[in-house]
């Protein structure tokens, strides 16, 4: 229980950030225009990610999956911004 809960809290936080970040930058219009909506949506997204963490077969799997997804999401976002494919 604890391993899966902490997976939702720690890498889950970064994964939620990546989800909100990708949505903010990939949606049409400048990223600044969805600041407040992104901030508001972040909390339900994080709660959802936290709860989904309990569907993993073990805490280690949850940590691994969330860490990889978060790293991929944040790296993808950084790359998109670096290449200026999103604004």
């Amino acid at each position, binding site marked *: 229980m604890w391993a899966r809960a902490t997976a939702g809290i720690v890498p889950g936080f970064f994964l939620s*950030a990546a989800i909100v*970040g990708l949505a903010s930058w990939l949606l049409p219009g400048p990223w*600044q225009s969805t600041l*407040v*909506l992104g901030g508001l949506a972040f909390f339900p997204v994080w*709660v*959802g990610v936290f709860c989904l963490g*309990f569907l993993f077969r073990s805490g280690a799997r949850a940590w691994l999956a969330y860490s990889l997804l978060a790293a991929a999401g944040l790296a993808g976002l950084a790359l998109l911004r670096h290449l200026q494919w999103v604004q």
Partner: protein
Amino acid sequence: MKLKSSTLRTFTALHTWVGLVAGFALFVAFYAGAITVFHHDLMVWQSPHAVEQPVGTLEDAQYLLDETLKRHPEARNWVGMLFPGEESAQPLAYWPDAQGRWHYATPDDLQGGAEPPSAALSELVNALHFSLGLPVAGLYLMGIVSLLYGVALVSGVVIHLPKLVEDLFALRPGRNLKRFWQDAHNVIGVLSLPMHVMFAATGALLCLATVVALALNPLIYGGKLAEAMPAALDTAPQMAAAGTPASPGGLAMWRARAQEEARKRGLDAFEPTYLKLTHAGDANALVEITGEVPRTLGSLGAVALNANTGEVVASQLPGHRDINHATLSIAYRLHFGEYGNAWVRWLYFLLGIGGAFLFFSGNLLWIESRRKRRQPEQGKPQVWMAKATVGFCIGACVAISTAFVAAQVLESHGAAWGMDTATGLNVACFGSWAACLAWAAVRPPIRAAIELLWAAAIVTALVPLAHGAMTGAWLWRSAAAGHTALFAIDAGALAMAAGFAWLAWLTGRRSRTGERNSVWALPAGI
């Protein structure tokens, strides 16, 4: 819908634990929040003469603004002001000093003070709502509680999902008390779910926005959040002072210009409620007039003007604003129930009390489901959970009603006793709460429950009595004079007192006639 039994078990455990951890704080947040819906009325109720005070004019407001800027040079950087009207009969000016402390002034108190007039009670109830009355850390604590509340909602829906429809309208009173509590808990939880989802999300945002913004800034916004924030939150652009003096326009001109701008956008009924003025007396002085447009959901809109010339610099009005301002306005109004008329506020009040019941009943279910049916002696954790629930939750009801009574007594006699109302209210509220907790700790839980419910009934019934005795505003006089807000608060307190008395009676009956092997049965020999 069918779910795997292991999933159901996991989510049941999750629901139980986050509910227990966050339930106490949520009970207070909902009970105090239900009362906070009426915070403007509470200010009128607290002050002995507020209801007779005529609504101030624009000239009064102009006088207050001029005097504030003259007497308090620090207000020239940033000053806010409430227009006289529905929210506050008299205009109110507020500004931060160099240390960031807020000051409030009215036409009757131009020198200003650290507390807005007659707001001690509504401020206390509001502080209980958003921070349990704890300074600084309380806000973040409630933010975390909001997140746990979100988890409790998701897990609650998941475990309820398989039998959602068939259970929804099942409220089965009878011998099986646990099933009755479970039904009541489920029905209230599911029927008010949209409101709970909204509160969990907006509550987390209101408490944790700054912390999460700090964390998200480097992660997803490339460190550019600080420069993007003002444009997302304010209407007026950020501007430095020019250093050259200029003579500012007046309130009447600003009001007219803001209304003209709103009319241009097809909003005929824009009524200014408050303003923010920066760099007063400077060539770059800006004023942001925020007003209400009736019959819109995010009904607050703002027009930013050059304070000297009245030229429109920017506007964010319903129907003509960006996503940030629309989201902010709608989230704010949804959380505070400030759309629609009095019906919406009463609905929020009832949903708030219903929410408090949800968390209270959650604790009762935890105790009930761990009951040892074959022995009179119940487990220690169950007994202490019962004591804590009774002392903390019913204690909070006693404490808030005590603060109401104390507010009336202190408004009349506080000055003679040399006691400031805000301090006195804190002592009354937290003192009586601590006493309830101590009482619950030393008494058997069922005894404490009955006694504290009676205490809540008596103290709550004293609320209209104290109001009438101290100010002469007995509830029938308020009704006859058409002061509906005063009448509603006093009558509401009487109804709550009757509710507490009814619960005390029911609890007393359960202690005598209910199942013997329970923390809620009278211990033998008492």
